[in-house]
């Protein structure tokens, strides 16, 4: 195949990738986007495989087959596990970039150091450092999300943490500069693995101090890194398709990370170096405030007589696997002519958009999933705000309490609804340790118990014979 044809095919693939993302702007066209993406990828693979320089085919076929064998089961994980899967695929992306960069370095070194121009060396170092730190960083993130035993969930901090992490990165970059200046030296092939090791270590240490609540941002940032690693690979291989596709991925991760940071009123550096969970240490004690609790019967009655019920879901809903019961409640209320809406906070869940996917799986139409900025003006008209497994995202302290770690974070105004029902597992202070004033408001009544059970009981009560 001539060079021109290959480039033409790559250009077509690029355009298809852009359309794939463009069609994601509404759920109505989104699936078309997937088909465009698959078409583009198929074109890219076939054309590349058909290049004359590719002479060994056995390993390629084997690796592609292995990719299918592992990839298909990975696509069937439960939706609660999608954040882990996503983190894992960032790890794979980083690994691929790091390995190709390494392979290219040793190849060019063996063919003669004159191949290792300054430009290529810089690109390779960037690719390898980004690739391998994304690899271990994402593995750590996936481990934390999967709650693997030997990876601590809570942020781990130690003295001079940021300083030593930065020193590690600086050492990797310094070694990179050294290699770039003397690419042909005898010692060069021995320094290269040191760079890899430093990048791998940096990835681990970067994620260790980050807690669960910050995972949506971290996943988005790692997404961006994986894209940028692909861009660097494009520079190494002189391949503009790689650069474009990598840049699309990189900017996507960046935008999602910015949205997540804004939704928490925090900066990038604060998320990456702030060890947020640490400030959440239980500051309970002092005056014991009283919860008011409501019975299932009473709760069901109020719900039934409402016009507008706003359900505020959080990660706790997913943990309790309550989303299907929530859908039954939605059905029961709808049947009685009650308007039911879901208020979705951007950082609810463990990755961007996580709640929407879980609720869509439970068969709730996406037209009733309303984002924070649109639902907040409606909250004063809501008869009931039902908080299911959400906590920080409805904590009014974010508006009023300057000393609160979440001060300034935009929240869903659940407290402005006429009545608030909050489902909570026990009367003990929550795991996160931040007091939630909402629970002690005049309008709030607690429904104690497991989210799935409580919602299930409400449904039973509503569908029971006495309630028509």
């Amino acid at each position: 195949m001539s060079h021109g044809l290959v480039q033409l095919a790559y250009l077509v693939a690029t355009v298809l990738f852009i359309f794939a993302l463009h069609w994601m702007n509404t759920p109505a066209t989104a699936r078309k986007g997937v088909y465009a993406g698959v078409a583009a990828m198929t074109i890219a693979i076939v054309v590349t495989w058909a290049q004359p320089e590719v002479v060994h085919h056995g390993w390629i076929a084997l690796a592609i087959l292995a990719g299918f064998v592992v990839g298909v089961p990975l696509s069937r994980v439960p939706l609660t596990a999608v954040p882990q899967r996503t983190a894992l695929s960032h790890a794979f992306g980083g690994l691929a970039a790091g390995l190709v960069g390494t392979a290219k370095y040793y190849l060019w070194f063996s063919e003669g150091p004159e191949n290792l121009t300054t430009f290529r060396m810089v690109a390779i170092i960037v690719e390898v450092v980004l690739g391998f730190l994304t690899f271990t960083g994402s593995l750590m993130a996936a481990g934390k999300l999967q709650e693997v035993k030997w990876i601590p969930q809570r942020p781990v901090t130690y003295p001079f943490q940021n300083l030593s992490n930065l020193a590690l990165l600086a050492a990797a970059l310094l070694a990179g500069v050294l290699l770039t200046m003397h690419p042909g030296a005898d010692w060069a092939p021995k320094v290269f693995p040191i760079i890899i090791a430093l990048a791998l270590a940096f990835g681990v240490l970067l994620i260790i101090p980050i807690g669960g609540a910050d995972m949506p941002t971290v996943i988005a940032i790692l997404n961006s890194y994986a894209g940028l690693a692909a861009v660097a690979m494009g520079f190494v291989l002189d391949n503009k398709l790689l650069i474009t596709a990598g840049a699309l991925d990189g900017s996507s991760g960046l935008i999602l990370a910015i949205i997540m940071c804004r939704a928490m009123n925090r900066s990038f550096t604060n998320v990456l170096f702030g060890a947020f969970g640490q400030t959440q240490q239980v500051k309970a004690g002092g005056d014991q405030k009283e919860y008011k609790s409501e019975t299932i019967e009473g709760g069901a009655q109020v719900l039934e007589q409402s016009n507008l019920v706003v359900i505020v879901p959080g990660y706790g809903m997913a943990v309790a696997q309550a989303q299907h019961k929530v859908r039954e409640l939605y059905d029961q209320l709808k049947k009685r002519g009650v308007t039911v809406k879901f208020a979705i906070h951007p950082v609810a869940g463990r990755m961007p958009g996580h709640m929407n996917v879980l609720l869509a799986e439970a068969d709730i139409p996406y037209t009733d999933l309303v984002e924070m900025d649109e639902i907040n003006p409606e909250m004063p008209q809501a008869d009931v705000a039902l908080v299911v497994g959400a906590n920080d995202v409805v904590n009014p302290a974010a508006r009023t309490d300057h000393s609160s770690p979440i001060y300034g974070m935009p929240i869903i105004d659940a407290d402005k609804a006429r009545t608030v029902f909050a489902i909570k597992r026990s009367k003990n202070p929550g795991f996160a340790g931040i007091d939630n004033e909402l629970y002690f408001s005049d309008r709030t009544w607690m429904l104690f118990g497991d989210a799935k059970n409580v919602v299930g009981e409400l449904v039973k009560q509503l569908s029971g014979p006495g309630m028509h």
Partner: protein
Amino acid sequence: MTQTLDFWSMMFVFVLASFIGVGVIRRVSRLLHTPLMSITNAISAIAVVGSIIVTGADYPEGIRILGAIALFASMTNIVSGFLITDRMLKMFKSERKTADRK
């Protein structure tokens, strides 16, 4: 000389593609941010292109092994990324066909 030209043309492609990326991604529905992340995962696995060459060209075996592992990793991302995106998107419906399935 050609090399610096290459560098700049690649830089142009990178910067322009990033702007297109920002423009397109900003319009993606917030409902779909999780599927967006899984589809961009699959798309950035375009690294497959580099891995195929490294695996299949007439290079020393050690280098081709690295390529094969990279190819496996990218292919896993492509397959699982596109499949799971489609699986999630299928779930987004604008209205329920039946009001009550029980």
